[in-house]
Every structure is written in structure tokens, then in C-alpha cells.
């Protein structure tokens, strides 16, 4: 496994800057996610790390060794893509061993077999080694793709939205498996995705990107509780965060002794509690616009002075449409942002 360091990494396509002076440091054995909406530069960054694209300016270091003149074939990176290009006519065994058989000198058949069995066990393909790849389910094909990259023991794993073709239930299963796998084999992994649930659930640290720029690079919980700006706050989190203009908020919510502008207040729906309309502890009073039952919880859409917001309700205490309710803000969980969208105290 290797550490990776990106230094002022920039990629321009003609007039368009896809990646802008990216600085990133990935430790040995770390699982890092590159997260962002489509077009943010995450795939371009990954392609540069792999060697498929050359940076316009900036450096890439593997274990502090510059990769500038090292071509893709020599960088010891393993790939898992979205469309995994499995050889359909070969057996699973053949697909897994492909990378080994291409080596010079070619390892002995026993050695190959041993490695294949080892990897198959890790990804859960031991029972289907002799089946033709064309007959496998989509889920198993994903495992073959994973195993095929693993077997050549690359220093770094690069995964580009590998689970986007799978159904939701299997994706949930694979998240746990991949996380566990990475923990067991201790490989440095870089995972590109636009799905924040995936990034949050698996990564040690997440690099959130937007329009080619790094927004924040931090562990999941830090992104969640201390987002660096409004973009990160809005992008991370299953139910979108509420943004309200700070000047409209009751002064009790605005803490003293803070530097920097406070233009926007951010609070996540789960830190709002619905209380009876006349309850004295309520921070504001709002009207219920809609209640969306989502099974495990309800999303309650509220309107307050022409501002829209969302809170979470519990199925047992479901307010009715048009009700006026009190909303209690958890003061510890309130975030502030200046007019440039950056987080302030």
C-alpha cells in the first residue's frame, strides 16, 4: 500500500478548468472518497492519479516518489469501474487470474490457483469459480471486477462509482463488505462517487469537490457536524439541511462573541424538535405544509414567514396538514455561514 500526495494538481481542457490546484494527502491504508456532483472533477482527478490523464500543472507523489514520468502501466494501481469489462467467455477463475497470467515471468499454475482461491474467498466467489462469467448475476460480476483488481496486489485501489449499476439492497450489502474488506487487507483506496451515503458510510476521510475545487477534506462526522461551507453542508446528509437568513432568527439563537459575518443559519432537520404551539421553549412557530411518511420516520415540511424548512417527526406523533406547531432549535447544532457561504463561528 502506498501513500498519495497531490500537490497543486490542475487539469485544464482548453479554456475549461476541470481540477483547480488540488492539494490532498492520503495516508497508507486509508480509505478516501472523492465526493461531489457530476462535473466536479472527481473522475478527472482519479484519472490523473491512475495515469490516464496527464496533469496540466502540479505533481502526484506515491510514497513521496513523483509519478510525473511514470506511465500508467508502471504505477501499480488497481481499477474497478462502473462497467467492469469482464470477459464473458472466460470462467470466473480465468477472469480473476488474468492479471497474473499476463505477468512476465508467468507464475506457475499452482501459484496462480492459490492466489485465485485466496481472492475468491475474500470477495465471496469460491463457489462459482468454474462458471462462465456470462452466466453470473450483476452482483457477482461486481465481485469479479473487484477480485480481478485485487489479485495483482496493487499499491493503490481506484474505484469509480462501482456500485451504481447494482440494485439498492445489494448496494447496501456491498458497502459493508467493501468497508470490511478494506479494513482487513489494509489497502489504500480512493473511491469516487456522487452518492453521499456511500462516501459517508465507507470512507475514513472524504474530499468534497465542487467545480474542480476542493471544498473540505475531513472524516465523515466532521463534514456532517462542522461543514466548511454551505455547499458541503447542503451536499452531505440524507435529508437536506435547512438554510435560513440569520437576521430573521430570534436573537436567543445568535451566540455572542463571534467574529465574521453571519448571513445564513444552517440547521439539520434532525436537530429540530416539534413541540406544541404554545410551548414556551419553542424557538419559532411554523405551519405544517406537508407530512411525508418515509417508513422509519416522517419528513415534516414547514413554512415559517415564507421560508420553507423541514423537520423530522416520529410516526407516533404525526402533525396534521395546516397545524401550527412550535419548532425547537437545538442551539448546539446551529451552524452559521457568511455571505460567501463559508462557515463562521
Amino acid at each position, binding site marked *: 500500500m502506498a501513500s498519495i500526495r497531490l500537490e497543486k494538481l490542475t487539469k485544464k481542457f482548453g479554456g475549461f478548468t476541470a481540477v483547480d490546484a488540488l492539494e490532498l494527502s492520503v495516508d497508507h491504508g486509508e480509505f478516501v472518497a472523492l465526493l461531489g*456532483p457530476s462535473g466536479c472533477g472527481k473522475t478527472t482527478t482519479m484519472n490523473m492519479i491512475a495515469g490516464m490523464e496527464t496533469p496540466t500543472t502540479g505533481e502526484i507523489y506515491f510514497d513521496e516518489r513523483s509519478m510525473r514520468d511514470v506511465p500508467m502501466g508502471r504505477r501499480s494501481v488497481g481499477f474497478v469501474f462502473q462497467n467492469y469489462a469482464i470477459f464473458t467467455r472466460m470462467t470466473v477463475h480465468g477472469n480473476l487470474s488474468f492479471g497474473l497470467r499476463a505477468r512476465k515471468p508467468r507464475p506457475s499454475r499452482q501459484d496462480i490457483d492459490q492466489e485465485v482461491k485466496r481472492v475468491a474467498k475474500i470477495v465471496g466467489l469460491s463457489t462459482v469459480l468454474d462458471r462462465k462469467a456470462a452466466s453470473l448475476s450483476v452482483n457477482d460480476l461486481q465481485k469479479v471486477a473487484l477480485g480481478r483488481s485485487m489479485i495483482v496486489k496493487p499499491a493503490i485501489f481506484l474505484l469509480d462509482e462501482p456500485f451504481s449499476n447494482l*440494485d*439498492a*439492497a445489494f448496494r*447496501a*450489502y456491498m*458497502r*459493508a463488505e467493501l*468497508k*470490511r474488506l478494506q*479494513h482487513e487487507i489494509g489497502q489504500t483506496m480512493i473511491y469516487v462517487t456522487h452518492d453521499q*451515503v456511500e462516501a*459517508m*458510510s*465507507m470512507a475514513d476521510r472524504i474530499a468534497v469537490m465542487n467545480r474542480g475545487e476542493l471544498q473540505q477534506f475531513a472524516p*465523515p*462526522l466532521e*463534514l*456532517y*457536524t462542522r461543514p466548511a461551507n454551505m455547499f458541503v453542508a*447542503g451536499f*452531505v*446528509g*440524507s*435529508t*437536506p439541511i435547512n438554510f435560513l437568513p440569520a437576521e430573521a432568527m430570534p436573537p436567543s439563537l445568535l451566540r455572542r462573541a463571534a467574529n465574521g459575518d453571519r448571513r445564513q443559519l444552517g440547521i*439539520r432537520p*434532525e436537530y429540530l424538535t416539534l413541540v406544541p404551539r404554545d410551548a414556551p421553549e419553542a424557538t419559532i412557530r411554523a405551519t405544517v*405544509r*406537508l407530512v*411525508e*411518511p*418515509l*417508513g*422509519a420516520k416522517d*419528513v415534516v*415540511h414547514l413554512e415559517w414567514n415564507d421560508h420553507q424548512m*423541514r423537520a423530522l417527526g416520529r410516526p407516533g406523533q404525526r402533525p396534521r396538514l395546516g397545524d401550527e406547531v412550535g419548532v425547537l432549535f437545538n442551539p448546539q447544532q446551529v451552524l452559521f455561514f457568511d455571505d460567501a457561504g463559508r462557515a463562521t463561528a
Partner: protein
Amino acid sequence: MARIRLDGVTKSFGAVTALRDISLDIADGEFFAILGPPGAGKTTLLRTIVGLETPEQGDVFADEQRITDVFPGDRNLAIMFQNLALYPDKSVFGNLAFPLKRAKVPRQEIRRRVQETAEKLHIEPLLGRKPAKLSGGERQRVALGRVLVREAGALLLDEPLSALDAMLRLEMRVELKRLQREVGRTLIYVTHDQVEAMSMPDRVAVLREGALQQVDSPENIYHRPASRFVATVIGSPPMNFIPAVAEASNGHLRVVHEQFVMESTAPVTAQRLAPGAPCFVGIRPEDIQVAVGGDGLAARIYATEPLGGETVVDVRLGDRLVKLIASPALQLSIDAEIRIQFDPSRLHVFDGDGMTVLSAGGAQGVMRLESRSRSVGDTDRPVGQ
């Protein structure tokens, strides 16, 4: 306003059967969703209702009139395609006016109705623009406008929100629900997104490989699924299924696992579950808790997925992986041994073929759960790896 009914509809494309014997009765003014994984036949179903596909067997009725052989334009149904299919050469006004012109609506009336619809959807300032100059969200609303302006008997929407980003999707969900209520028209809504299927419709039809699995309110689908498939298709993270074995017990349903025993408190006839038959216990991640005291089933943490507002914990229970939801404040490390508890009012039992035998569905006292490992202090059963 139309009541749409399907009777034994079967549709094949060559060797592939896309729809198998579908019978549905959608009430006038109902918000009806069709949910299923990609390839289940949802779009084919919609296209068959509107007449772009003709079934080999079965019939389609609108207000009890047989429309199976009626040309699509004469069925008084409006459809919004997944890729919107706005007329690129026409302005927004032209797009909305097109169906009305075909229906020979007088010019004044066309203008009035287009204006009204545009107001409802907040797209008046866009009336002069062509689709190419609109954002994704704006195009969505124009496409919606085109089906609304017709005042057709029923509106068919094919995954209308799938192309939008998360924030916009959330807003549009609220908008759509409000609109449907306001306009009061039958709405048939196809989706693969289970959040949409839970939050918006009056009833949901779950489709799998062309066959109906269950047709019920979202609540019932969630809390009383008819099969493992239905239980999996709604709810994220998905329901856990723990293999167990049925046992004889004088008319009560009794299910045994290495670490726990479940029994129904009322008599249950379950012919499918003969003594010794394999079965599955279903429980959703949000209905499993990390036990604070020493009581509960022994489990070992396999992985943790911190999502910010909550943490999904994957644990090994026996030789099965089970997901549960825990508070983010809880300190949990990989490979730690913990104890977990199931909410007995949320347990389900499925037979070996995946069909539901018994669903607690949120009702208290339907099932009783007893852990088989004794309390802390006694020798614990070893948790197999």
C-alpha cells in the same frame, strides 16, 4: 376524472413477457404509484394503459369503457415520459398549446388554459423560450404542464423526478403532492425510488418481472409486506432476513434460531410452515437496538457506516450479517462484542419461498421474543465466525 381498470393484461415482446396477467383497479382521483426495480415492466404498463403498446391478452378500461383498441389520442389520457420528450422546435407556450390545438380548442380558450397552467407551475416567465434554453427543473415543469393543460381523465407520469438533483427532487415531491390534491385528477406514477413511493401515493403497486406482488397503502407495504421481495423494495437500509426453523406448537407459530425463539401469541394457521421447515425472520434496521444493559442477543460488530445523523452498524449474528441503526453518539469499534435487541412488534416471518407467514406490522403483543443466550455472567454461546 377517470377510474382506470386493468383486467388480466399480458404483454410480450418476442420471447420476453413484460407483463403477466396484471389486474388493477385505480379509483377516480387516486394518487397511485407503481414501484419496482428497473426492468420490472413499469414503463410497459404505463405505455399499455395509454395505448402505445397493445396487450396480447386482457383489457384496459377507463370509466368502465373498454379502451383496449382505442387509438392513444382518443383515450383522454395524458402521459409524461421519462425523457420528457418536449417538442424542441416549439416554445414553452407552443408545447403546452399543442394538445389543445389538436383538440380544436378555440384560440382564446387555449391562451387562457395555457396561462392558468403556467401559473400553477410557476413557469409563466418561460412561455416564450424554447426547451433548449431551460434548466432541468424548468423542463420538468413544462413537461408536467403539458399533461396538466389537457385536463385529461388521468395523468400518467413515468419516473418524472429521476433526472433531478436531490434538493430539486425534494421540492418537486412536495409540489406534485400539492398539485394532485388541488387538481383532483387520477395520477398514475411510476418510480423505482422507494422514498417517492412511500411519501406521495394513496396506494402502491409493487411490480417484479412483470407480475404484481402487492397492491396496498405505503404504510401497509412497509409494515405488512406480502413477501421478502416487497419488504426489500421499500426501506433503506433494507430489511434484515435471519434464517430460522419452524417448530410445532399447538396452533401457534413458533420459530427457532440459535439465539432466540419467537412465538405468536394468538393461534396462527401456517400450512406452509410445517415443523422443521426453514423460514426467515424479518426485521428492519431501525427496529433493532444496541442493548444498553447486558440483556439481548450476542453479536459482533463487522463494520460501521457513520452517516452523520445516524450510524448504520453491521453486526454478525451467528453466521448472518445484520444491519441496525444506532445513534451517532455511540462509540462502536470493529470486532467489538455487543448485545442487540429486536422490537417484537416489528417482526415478520417469511417461509422458505419468501412469502409472508406473519407480520407483526407494528401491532403490540402479536409476537413474543425470547433470547436463548442466558444473561451476562453465564457462559455465552460462542459466536461463530
